[in-house]
């Protein structure tokens, strides 16, 4: 076990966990931030996507010991009240079905737009291909990203 001081959603939070613990489980089990979802555990589905220093990464495969003082942003910290342009676009297009993968989809999309405010369809495909949606909401996700990019 080891003590870590993490910077999550702009707050400094302390945990005492096994250094190999993936950030995903630190968020979910220890910090009660359950918006980040467990899907596959091997960085193949994107449900656990968070931003680490602004980059979309899979928290299920990111050990807490290497987070250091990096800025972690989760779905809970993306906006005060669901008013990030990506979230507003998700509302406009009523994107989710079951909803389980959507936090990860939103975090991947938000990271894309922060780097590339006017992505092409190919850019969107490349940024989003790591996020699986079994309900098949991809067409709406893409529309919502285009809407957010134009807003």
């Amino acid at each position, binding site marked *: 076990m080891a003590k870590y001081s993490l910077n999550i959603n702009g707050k400094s939070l302390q945990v005492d966990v*096994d250094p190999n613990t993936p950030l995903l*489980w630190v968020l979910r089990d220890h910090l009660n931030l*359950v*918006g980040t979802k467990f899907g596959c555990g091997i960085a193949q589905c994107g449900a656990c996507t968070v931003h680490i220093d602004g980059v979309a990464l899979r928290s299920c495969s990111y050990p807490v010991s290497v987070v250091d003082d990096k800025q972690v942003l989760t779905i809970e910290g993306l*906006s005060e*009240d669901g008013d990030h342009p990506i979230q507003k676009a998700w509302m406009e297009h009523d994107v989710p079905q*079951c909803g389980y993968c959507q936090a990860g989809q939103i975090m991947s999309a938000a990271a894309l737009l922060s780097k590339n405010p006017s992505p092409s369809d190919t850019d969107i495909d490349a940024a989003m*291909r790591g996020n*699986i949606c079994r309900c098949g909401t991809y*067409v709406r996700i893409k529309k919502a990203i285009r809407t957010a990019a134009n807003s």
Partner: protein
Amino acid sequence: MTIVKTRINRRSFLKASALAGGGMILSFSWLAGCKPTNEEEVLALPKEWFELNSYIKIGENGAVTLFNSSPEFGQNVQTSLPMILAEELDVDWNMVMVEQGNFAPRRFERQFAGGSQSIRQGWIPLRTVGATARQMLVNAAAQTWKVSTDEITTENGVLMHKASGKKAGYGEMASLAAKLPVPEDIKLKEKQDFKIVGSSKRNVDLKKIITGKPLFGIDHKVEGMKYASIIHPPAFGMKLKSFDATIALKMPGIQEVFVVNIFNNSYVRSFFDTATFPELIAVVGNSTWEVLQAKKSVNVEWENAAESTFMKTGFGGGDPFQATVPEGLESTAIHRTKMADSTRKPGRILRKDGDPEKAFKTAAKVLERTYTAPFLAHNTMEPANCFAHVTADQAVLYGATQWPDPISDTLSDSLGLPKEKIQINLARMGGGFGRRAYSHQLVEAALISQKAKAPIMMVYTREDDMTSGVYRPTYSATYRAALDENNNLLAFHVKAGGIPETPIHPNRFPAGAIENYLAESWEIPSNITVGAFRAPSSNFIAGAEQSFLDELAEEMGKDPIDFRLELLGRAIKNPVGERNDYDPERYAGVLKLVREKSQWDTLQSDVNRGVSAYFCHNSYVAEVLDIKMVNDKPVVENVYAAVDCGIVVNPDAAANMGEGAIVDGIGNAFYGELNFQDGVPQKNNFNTYRMIRMPEAPKKIDVHFVKNEHDPTGLGEPLFPPIFAALANALYKSTGKRLYNQPFITGLEGEDLMRL
């Protein structure tokens, strides 16, 4: 005017007095209209609620809470079922809050998600519930104002008496209305007067989903909760021999390792009590990660399981019978050989019209094709999990289940607690697709909690989830058509089976449209467990049948839509046989609509198109799929769907579900496959089990609905089955290759569909 007897929904009118009165802590972000929260609205929360029936309570200020009693797994019943209530109650949707009703058989009817039935079966009961509550409010106003009920009208939650100019909000009359007798004969609205039904409303949980609020079973937490996971045998046909947890128990945070048995030996299992591995090892500890690490350190010895039997009831109950689990470690190669053998032997005749044998003997030409598809895993994005807290005298569960009722019996028997001491609270499900109709994980979590004497969250890893069975069966279907020398269709023969179930529906189209028709089936027993998977059996047979009809139309020199319409024309004018379980007019209607919307008759120079149509789960669907070849690789461009599901309750959400089913179907058709070697599933996570991803999804999907006034039918499943053939038929046009075996990716040698 539709008049219904409220007796049909007797349970819905039980008053649950504990819920009347204030005390509910709700924020207005629950408002169905998803309006932005502001100070005034928060202050406007009611001080007191009055319960008009099991589904509706009204605050003294006019706020309305509607309960959705059906489990929600993405089909959006949490929005659409309350819309039906709100329509007949005649309230402003912006004043509505929706709550998930927990499992309460004394309070709610039919708490089940599956078979695309929630809207269809909820339609009249929920309209009746809403209209009855409205009538009680009218009666209360009539009593208060001392006027006739006939003179009172309602609109958007306001009662009005035109002659005297009196007006009152529902909230003002709710207290009295809740005390009045339940009226017996209720008038339902005329369909042309609908204001909420038929207008698109956003998902009532939308904001919670996009802000990451805890909604799912796996998100649940209570003070003192422990975490648990399970270890199951590595292969079908194996069981636990012994285990040694010495090392695991020394690992940090690990509390206990023990065995759980899901069923008592004497228990008569229901149809939905499918559990691949009824005996499991459970690991309990302080955190998920510690538990998952310790699992790997438990030394387990497995052994081959001998043939075993248990007593069960069939679908819908009935007398118990003995079910057998065969012994053996099965492999896909052997499955394929056995299935090929079965296609050559006579099957069990399910339907025969005319004299098909004679027609085939005299035919000038016979077209014969065999189609196959593998086992499929459901791969819900939320892996199996459940919260349970079992104490000496009660059990509280929170988790994902499509059908809490049957599993409540199992829980009662396995825990040794009376059913009324078992509370199952319904979580939003991170996907279901049929898998969560089999709810053994609730029993596992409860038994672990009981033994660990603590509230626990049990979580499967993705590998556990993908390798623990209840799959879509593997199937094979052989179609034959007999043609005369002028290419007239003389006879049609389908022989289909699977491991362990047949996919055939003998009375569906094209039965009824062909003079000489034969349908036969076969089954091969297996210890690989199977269960419902989005449009069970239709999800295979539609693709096979509609691919065959495409090839047959080509052989006959006909346009594939014209050919289907000709067959349906026969079924309309002069149907063969009497047991045809489809309406050929509505079937033809969706084909005509998709022809129009896809501009089928206008030559599309840059795309190759495939068409397919199917009727299942009470709804009719026709689909056209366009493929464009880009650098010699097929890319799905557009999909056009025409759907007849009667009245569409929530059109945009209905389109969303249709789009999803199409994407899901294309993904499963291209990539879906789970094979076995010596009983071991050959894929266990998304690095090997390929799922459709955004770049492979169609660029555009248009879902069109036939406008009519038929009572609504379901949508979760019907758009899924036909897309397999629309894709296969378009791939044929694009590549010149007919694809008979799923997944199609294996038939497209050298084609890298994962292009970027």
